[in-house]
């Protein structure tokens, strides 16, 4: 099924454009003698199969409108940072650039999910030169940005492995251990941030 229709070719272009803009933002920080914003970036366009599954689950129309307008994560970018401060610095910068607007944010870092998941989610409305489903050219596309530290990212990978392995024994205990691990990683993140602040106290 080709749920993205005629808009499909634009999606990977927009993903690359946004990643380039983020990389420019990072370079500007480095040029201004600040530490790098992030450790690495990952970008993806949701596969058409996953998007169909999601639209069915959410009751959205199986059309480009459903996939690109109702669903806002067809294009996803993850910013993986060294330290918690960098996550918030990146968010602050993103709120002040002229090529996008933050339309929604969810802070799962200060309020983690019950299973221990920590991450900061933004939905950006990005200005593009391409046509959009509302017939506007140039159109604005939604891009989901997830920001997290390396520790939060590793944890999410582990949790992902558990979630997609259905035949797991003692899933309750494993879930409990994952939660405990999330709390310990959060502890390390906060500890590193504190040490970093102590180092730069007199800057």
């Amino acid at each position, binding site marked *: 099924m080709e749920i993205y229709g005629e808009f499909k070719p634009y999606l990977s272009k927009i993903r690359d454009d946004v990643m380039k803009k983020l990389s420019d933002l990072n370079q500007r920080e480095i040029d201004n003698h600040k530490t790098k914003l992030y450790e690495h970036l990952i970008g993806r366009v949701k596969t058409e199969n996953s998007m169909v599954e999601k639209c069915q689950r959410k009751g959205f129309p199986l059309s480009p409108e459903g996939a690109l307008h109702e669903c806002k994560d067809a294009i996803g970018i993850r910013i993986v940072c060294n330290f*918690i401060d960098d996550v918030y610095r990146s968010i602050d910068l993103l709120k002040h650039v002229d090529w996008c607007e933050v339309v929604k944010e969810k802070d799962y870092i*200060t*309020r*983690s999910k019950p299973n221990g998941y920590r991450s900061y989610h933004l939905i950006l409305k990005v200005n593009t030169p391409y046509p959009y489903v509302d017939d506007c050219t140039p159109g604005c596309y939604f891009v989901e940005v997830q920001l997290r530290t390396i520790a939060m990212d590793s944890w999410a990978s582990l949790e992902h492995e558990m979630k997609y392995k259905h035949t797991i024994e003692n899933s309750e205990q494993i879930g409990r251990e994952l939660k*405990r691990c999330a*709390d*310990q990683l*959060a*502890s390390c993140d*906060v*500890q590193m*941030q*504190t*040490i970093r*602040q*102590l180092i730069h106290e007199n800057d």
Partner: protein
Amino acid sequence: MRILLAEDEKELSRVLVTAMHSIGYTVDPVYNGLEAVEKANQGVYDLMIFDIMMPVMTGIEALKKIRSAGDQTYVIMLTAMSEIDDKVTGLDAGADDYITKPFSLKELLARLRSLERRSEDYTNDVLKFGDITLDSSEQRLESFNSISLSAKETKLLNLFILNANKKINSDILIEHVWDSEDDIDRDTLWIYISYLRQKLQSVNAHVEIHGEKGGPYQLINTNGGNFNDSKVSL
């Protein structure tokens, strides 16, 4: 509480067992030191009560054997009023307390209650203050979020909660949280205070540690700013 009672006078043993049963304690009575050692090796007790003068093996000898096996259970010795030396040998052999014979049942039961309260305070170590919960055995701080604490951070926050709103000097904090052989100065304490501050912030707590580098430090409930709202519960 599970209690091991070693008392060779059958009549006295029976009275003590009945009294302790009546207030909900589980008691294993034995009638000489050797039986006490055997029972202690097999089971876990919250308290042991040993008479000193017993056949086969004295209470002191039994205590020494139990301690040398690594058992740290709280032990109360029953000593005769006149035998000062027994008290001294008993305590030196590893007893935690003694009761002189003849004693009133009322006093013994009151001591057991006191001991129970104390051990509960140490084992049921979940403390609440303002909107935070500290689980000392899990070394976890919770509010709108949860985070792990190190052993020292846990001890430090525990002390702060038990003494909330008091301005506490650095030296007192160091003395209570670190062992005397640890070489800890105020700068190290400051790092730990900084960790705790950031961790309180990261769980979104309305509880803060006030104070400049060097101390004194004070744990404050910032929710509404009313000190009367801050309640310590065990």
